[in-house]
């Protein structure tokens, strides 16, 4: 395992409450380069909320985030992007009325020397990366609302991958996908991992977790149940953590 040296991300003692309800309650997790950490738990366990503190969508009430051992101030999505943190949201966060290229470059448009957006260049870049991620993708001119679930997903993934992310957050990236597309995402995760990215993967499918993740952090009712090395535990151990909040005998880190 690569759990040595300085972690790429360390979220230390994070808490956030909404109107008295502790959505995330003193949770500490970390992530190393070239590692996939699964975030598991029931709906409402606080996984997405925790991860949104890292992506800048929410501001935590207390706690600290360290990137490469240095304290990071992440107040909004712009800050997160500045730390090379990219997020694929469960909702995909696409502007339905714009085409794939406009969505891919949203907030980071390529511009001509005169300062105008360079649509042709952006479309060319989009064709390049989509050719790699999803060679069947053809609808470059249509607004993304005309795309299928899988196609929309690939636009969201392309957006996260294109800008040389070092830290990738994937919130149920395969939830809306068929088996073939799920396989493509799995291969992509392996490839990105090999390139040294750190990936937080929020995932419900226990088989995907066992297959893709190096470690898994399980949350329940806003608290961290524990973090385990996936290859040292069984499906049942992890399910026990998710459902009962019970730590397994071995494998915890």
């Amino acid at each position: 395992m690569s759990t040595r040296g300085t972690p790429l991300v360390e979220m230390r003692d994070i808490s956030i409450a909404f109107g008295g309800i502790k959505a995330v309650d003193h949770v500490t997790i970390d992530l190393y380069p070239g590692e996939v950490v699964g975030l598991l738990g029931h709906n409402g366990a606080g996984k997405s909320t925790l991860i949104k503190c890292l992506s800048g969508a929410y501001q935590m009430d207390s706690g600290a985030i360290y990137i490469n051992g240095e304290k990071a101030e992440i107040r909004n999505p712009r800050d997160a992007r500045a730390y090379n943190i990219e997020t694929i949201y469960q909702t995909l966060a696409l502007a339905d009325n714009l085409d794939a290229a406009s969505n891919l470059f949203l907030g980071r448009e390529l511009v001509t020397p005169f300062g105008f957006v360079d649509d042709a260049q952006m479309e060319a870049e989009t064709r390049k990366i989509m050719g790699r991620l999803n060679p069947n993708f053809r609808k470059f001119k249509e607004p993304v609302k005309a795309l299928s679930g899988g196609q929309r997903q690939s636009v969201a993934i392309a957006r996260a991958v294109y800008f040389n992310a070092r830290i990738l957050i994937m919130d149920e990236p395969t939830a809306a996908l068929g088996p073939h597309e799920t396989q493509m995402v799995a291969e992509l995760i392996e490839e990105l991992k090999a390139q040294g990215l750190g990936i937080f993967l929020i995932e419900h499918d226990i088989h995907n977790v066992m297959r893709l993740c190096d470690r898994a952090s399980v949350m329940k009712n806003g608290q961290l149940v524990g973090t385990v090395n996936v290859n040292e535990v069984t499906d049942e151990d992890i399910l026990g953590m998710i459902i009962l909040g019970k730590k397994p005998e071995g494998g915890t880190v």
Partner: protein
Amino acid sequence: MNTPTPQDGGQKRTLLQSLELDTRLLGMIGAFVLICLVFNVITDGRFLTPRNIFNLSIQTVSVAIMATGMVFVIVTRHIDLSVGAVLAICSSVMGVMQVQLLPQFFGIGHPLVMPLTVIAGLLTGAAIGALNGWLIGYQRIPAFIVTLGGLLIWRNVGWYLTDGQTVGPLDQTFMLFGGVEGTVGAALSWALAVFFSVLAVLGLWRARQAKIRHEFPVKPLWAEGALMATAVAAILGFVAILNSYAIPVGRLKREFDARGEVMPEGYIDYFGLPISVLMLVVIVVVMTLIARKTRLGRYIFAAGGNPDAAELSGINTRMLTVKIFTLMGVLCAISAMVAQARLANHTNDIGSLDELRVIAAAVIGGTALAGGIGTIYGAVLGAVIMQSLQSGMAMVGVDAPFQNIVVGGVLVLAVWIDIQYRKRTGEKV
């Protein structure tokens, strides 16, 4: 924004697909042509005379200018009910500046009066717009409420500035913004027509070259040529019509007399393009560039399509709201210049009910209140359609109450047709 275009595959293209035209735009142009023809028949050909087309043009400008800004407001899922009131206060500030304040320092007719007046008006519009945007974007008060308040506030602040009195006569240079007083003459009109034609052809050609450079599919050359020819014909045709509207002999005589000359027998001169129409053209070009070619425009449409996505993409949507409403305020000020100069006075009720005309123009022009969809040219066309309906009915002698009934009906009908159209093309409504 994004017109549906044929797939890259090699299926047979229909005529419309080859031209890659916006069918919604074609529908609006069709409706407009129909309105013109019907009124022309009813009025025994008086509707489509150069004189009436000239008048129609200068009457439309004020609402059309504001409608371009309203597109951005509505696209981002906001509304601005205060544009008529903001126009009124900008007009009152400019009226007081040029009639009461500035002549005290410079004297009447001083060349600095006009520019200083315009600057004061633009600053007023920008400041009120920015305030609206701040209240909406940063304080999270719904735009409907902020601008409904503004509708009551700003016209009446203007009332206090002028004690409710009509302010005039206006500065002579300032009057040029109005229309009848300010036209550029036939020769310059032709020159401008050629200039804009070249610009249109060049624009289409460069877009094509950019596509070819990136090896994207382009439409057939004949289709591109037909589009260019249509654009050039429309520009030259419009100018030709305005250039055939002769200035009345009496007025020409007065002009010669004023210069101490005698008008030659049989002398004839033409109005040409009104300065206000030129201002509208420039504003349409600039606003279209903003909408399609700048980050600001991209963010406006992204925020309208999915505000959360825009926020998560790192767009500062609050500041974006301030920018949009500031722009709207500036456009209100420009409209105030045109409206005031056309009426030759500032009056207290200037721009009354303009908020409804402007919103109607944008909506008839295909701007969706649900956000994310709208075009600048559509809004201008919407304003033209509304104005021609209204003038046409006035020419025919339709009672004023019935005119409003018709315009109201057309608004609802236009939106209904739009919804049906989007259903058929499979867009979400």
